[in-house]
């Protein structure tokens, strides 16, 4: 059993937000909560690059470390999930996360934050698989169906890779290899000090 990983190929990402909307539409996420976002640097200049970010399902996840209620847990396949029943919305995971992955829809009492919501790698949550409750709290459980997370499956240019870390690395290595030398090669600018 490998570990599940996302990898966004910045040479391919075109900032179409397909992943963002695929995720929202697939899991019926309220407006304002972004399990996934696309970030662009150097907008409008040569060297403009975009990258799609969500929970990275860290091997050594800071959110798990800081969670006071142990609501966040990691499955054996590396997917980091949150139990919304246990979560108290304290927001510590947000402060610990380098990627801004944890999201907080507003709760009922005094405008307090509700339970944390984040990318589930389309693996639902701790509830019974395909149950109505799971669907409602966490969205689809595509991993249990044997399917790819929606964002990666629907990526317009196949920039976003998802899956077993080893396989993702293989795919990416193959791509870098195919890109060959010259302007398209990864790290060419760095290695040869030219653009």
């Amino acid at each position, binding site marked *: 059993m490998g570990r599940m990983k996302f990898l966004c190929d910045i040479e391919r990402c075109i*900032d179409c*937000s397909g992943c963002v909307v695929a995720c929202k539409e697939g899991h019926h996420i309220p407006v304002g909560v972004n399990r996934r976002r696309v970030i662009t640097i150097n907008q409008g200049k040569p060297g403009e690059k975009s990258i799609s970010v969500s929970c990275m399902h860290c091997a050594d996840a800071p959110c798990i470390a800081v969670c006071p209620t142990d609501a966040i847990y990691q499955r054996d396949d590396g997917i980091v999930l949150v139990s919304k029943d246990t979560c108290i919305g304290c927001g510590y995971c947000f402060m610990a996360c380098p990627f801004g992955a944890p999201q907080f829809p507003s709760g009922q009492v005094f405008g307090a934050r509700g339970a944390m919501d984040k990318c589930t790698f389309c693996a639902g949550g701790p509830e019974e698989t395909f149950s109505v409750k799971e669907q409602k709290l966490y969205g689809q459980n595509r991993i249990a169906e044997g399917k790819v997370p929606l964002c990666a499956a629907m990526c317009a240019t196949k920039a976003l890779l998802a899956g077993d870390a080893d396989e993702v690395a293989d795919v990416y290595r193959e791509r870098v290899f195919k890109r060959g030398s010259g302007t398209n090669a990864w790290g060419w600018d760095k290695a040869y000090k030219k653009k």
Partner: protein
Amino acid sequence: MIFIGSNAAEAHPISMQHILHAKEVNNAPIIVVDPRFTKLAAKASEFVRIRPGSDCAFIMGLINEIIQKGWEDKEFIRTRVAGYPEMAEIATKYTPEEVENITGIPAAQTRKVAKILATNRPTSLTWCMGGTQHSIGSSITRAFCILQLVLGNMGKSGGGTNIFRGHDNVQGATDMCVLSHTLPGYYGLSDGSWKHWCRVWDVDYDYITSRFKEKKWMNAKGFTLSRWYEGVLGEEKIEQYTPIKAMIQWGCGSNSNSQYNRVVQAYNKLDLFVIVDPFPTMAAATCTTDNVYLLPCSSQYETSGSVTSTSRQIQWRHKIVDPIGGCRDDYSIMKDLVERLGFADKFYKNIKETPEDITREINKGTLTIGYNGQTPERIKKHMENWHTFDIETLQAKGGPCDGDYYGMPWPCWTDTHPGTPILYDVSKPVAEGGLPFRNRFGQETTYVMSGREENQLASKGVCNPGSEVKGGYAEFKDVVPGTNWKTDLSQKTIKEAIARGMAPFGNARARCVVWTFPDQVPIHREPLHSPRPDLIEKYPTYEDKPNHFRVFTRYKSEQNPNLVKEFPYVLTTGRMVEHMGGGAETRSNKYLSELQPEMYAEINPVLGNNLGLRDGEMIWIESPEGGKVKVKAFFTERVDDKTIFMPYHFGGTLMGESLAGNYPAGHEPYVMGDAANVCTNYGYDIVTQIQATKDGLCKVSRA
């Protein structure tokens, strides 16, 4: 690959999959020619910043450079191109230095691009609205094609001109010619064409004639989408016996019309205005009169029918769910209307099963573009077996569709023909998807410009494999006496041509000189509202055209060298990935609205700071026609310091005033903003009357 006036990364994101594949796997250079550093330019290997509206000069400059260096495909030109010397003569005027003067592209870069094109063959050339929406749009697009002819890239895998079309079925609707100057299948409006379609429809030619006011109106081009409102307002001289009093807008967002404030005036003057759309479009909110009807048709997912993608692939859009609420699908609304207008028996004579029988009627009549083979059964079979198609060649490997190309791109001459994935490809037999250039414009021509006489048929030896005639040949006719391949409803002519390994439409040369156009060879002409008054004298626009699709159209009288003093910045418009067209659909989608919640205008920080504006501030942008929009300033280096860019998807606000209250309650879109097209300038193409939205002028002030 070269992209001119196309932002595929935003307008056609999925195509980027293939574009980046070519870049990465084939190491194909991507050249992007655009006034704006687009998201596509971010992926390009060469970005060429061009002044809006000067594309023709740049392309002619490339052609000149290629010819001067001797990089042209001499064999291709000798055998398959007509009018070449005349074109080359004119191209010599566009030296790289002159191109730099007109377009702002450094001469060295023009030379570099020419070299990239010459050394990376075949090159695929892509353009979109950035190439067409100019007063010389028809010249610009022809220049693109001529460039590909000169390079010998036509009819080759990886070559050709690939226009990325906007709407999902704009190719299908264009093939069906929902156009005021032609009948379905590009038959035109001549008597022969009408007679042909009357035979297809199985009605008397006299009956159709009787429906018109007079017979002459049958052959006269009608008003266009871009200028129909002149027929209502009557401010310009119109060539029609009556002003337009009623309007049916069927699935048309309307705020994509330039000079939108005048369109709004026209809405309010109509006696009857019917809007058929799943969402209330901006049109419903802009007019305030009483005679407006909103008919909720279903979305396309709630009905079925075929759609043609930009690569001419025909796919069957299956109905997913029944029309929701009280909506009706398009077919039933049309049927209801026709029944109430009293010609349903004739209209639906051969149409029993909707929509399949309609497809069959199209198959029967649309012979010009080889629409005979795409029967509903075959299209559906392709949809069911889409997984059997090879992703490189799009040809089915085995399975029920073995050998077919996906979606049977037209021409698909017979019901066993696989479709033609690449037009004018002479390396394949016609029966397997090959094609020569069409013989359409006679066989001998004498050019006015040079007095030279030239045979329009292809040279000896150039033909598809298995062709009976080894070389050029004329189009097929009189196989069934009195008909030609276009009008022979029995399709015997086409079948015979295919059987003999030949194309029904002949084998001719592609022409560089179009003797029916105002500019026989594409030449640069300054936009009507030019930011370069010094160039107007050298590259003046056309003479005014009195009856241009029934309306007087100004050219020379509109071009004013002093305009730029008051309106100093070039205004161009375009798309963003989150929205579509007028945005009625996407601005009613909460997730897409969340991603792009505001109308803005892109301004270079240099220009913004010179004008004393702040990033994120509200500004007025005003056009010479008096249109103005209130938008947020967005400082970005995507545009240069003389250009202002606005996305045209927004609506719901007119000249700074919100129209939210004019929508049916609860149906106003989530996001509203000023419609950019209020500001787009006057200007229409000399041939097609497409609006010139990409090269207008404007001025900016703080709101």
